[in-house]
């Protein structure tokens, strides 16, 4: 899907996407991390269930909504990755019940 242009040894953080761990460069957005890790979707829409990935990367399209550290419907392109962050796909609408 996407790759890093330079192998320059930038700092990395470890994030968990679904049930796998990945090392990604620190400072990039969750949306960029997801594209780098070649996962094939972030969510299925609440309307038709169709799969989506980030589209605009600048916070306007809301196609990259995803659950981050248990909080659903966050814009992946607007959130920076952090060490031990947990990213989970969203199947349709989010539950009101949330983990603390």
């Amino acid at each position, binding site marked *: 899907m996407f790759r890093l242009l330079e192998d320059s040894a930038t700092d990395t953080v470890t994030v968990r996407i679904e049930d796998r761990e990945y090392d990604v460069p620190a400072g990039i957005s969750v949306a960029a991390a997801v594209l780098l890790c070649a996962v094939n979707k972030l969510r299925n829409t*609440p309307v038709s269930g169709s799969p989506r990935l980030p589209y605009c990367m600048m916070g306007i399209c809301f196609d990259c909504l995803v659950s981050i550290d248990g*909080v659903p*419907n966050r814009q992946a392109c607007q959130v920076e990755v952090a060490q031990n962050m947990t990213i989970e796909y969203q199947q349709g*609408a*989010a539950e*009101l*019940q*949330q983990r603390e």
Partner: protein
Amino acid sequence: MEYDFIVAGGGLVGSAIAYGLARQKHRVAVLDGGDRSFRASRGNFGLVWVQGKGADFAPYAQWTGLAAGLWPRFVEELETETGVVIDYQRSGGMHFCLNGAEWDERVQEMEKVRQHTNGSFTYEMLNHAQLKKQIPQISRAVVGASYSPLDGHVNPLYLLQALQQGMDYHKVHYFPGQSIDRIETQQGGFLVHSTQGTLSAEKIVICAGLDNRRLGEMLGMDIPVIVDRGQIMITERMQPFLNLPTLHVRQTAEGTVQIGYSHEDAGLDDGTSPSVLKTLAGRAVSMFPLLARVNLVRAWGALRVMTPDHNPIYQQSASCPGAFAVTCHSGVTLAAMHAGPVAGWIAGSSELDLVNQFSTDRFNVSPA
């Protein structure tokens, strides 16, 4: 005359009446406003609501009860004719009480409505434990609720769309983007001059919301209309968690959560204000703490069409017979009434004694 009826206004009230008239095979034209007109119908909360209504005016309690009773049949016919599913559910509805005083006041109101309707209005008061059983997410801050099985809700925008399809189905001529400059009375009817040109009809019904005062004057009627701004918010879609509407929070069939409501005198400004939005959000979160982490998607203001005593006006002009005015703020709940008995009353095809209680005469009583 080109038409039997011209209906001025294509919101929920005008559309329901035009639809009702057209179903009785009358030739009807609807003159509607533009895309940016004030439209109370687009700011609606979507309740088909009985509880508490008319506590201080018995005819309104009875009127609302009749309307709610007509709803199931009305929906069935409307959906069958148009194919538009309007998400109607007569699920019962609740009004939350946040303290003992609110509870006591609520009991009194509900009791009044019960008496006004000779007991046909039914309700229960639920304490916190009983409420919690039905709605597990409810906050401890809610001491209890009034519940009436007669309440329900609907998607108000789909209702408007269905009425519009229904008008189309019954060959109503619909003219959008109109503003009415002048109405003339002439032998056997009315001439209405608008952006469109001139249309003629034997009878005219003004359902133009805030414009009813101006149009009423053209027809010899004094329609006291008061502007009342309400602000509403809606969240992103969530999984179903609330299976019945409440007066302040309701989950739509799509999953979004609608949060109301407010009353303000803001003139003709249909915008929003941060302080009211904050209050609405605070109250919703105090009722459902889990909503704190849900994203707001839209907030808007809309102008309610109020009368001095908040009850509807149904009036036939004394000086221009054949001219009718309808003014109310419960366009959803009363839609079934408007499409049925009220359309019949206007057409002169059926009796409706109760309607006389809603004439503007009630405002002209000189103080004793």
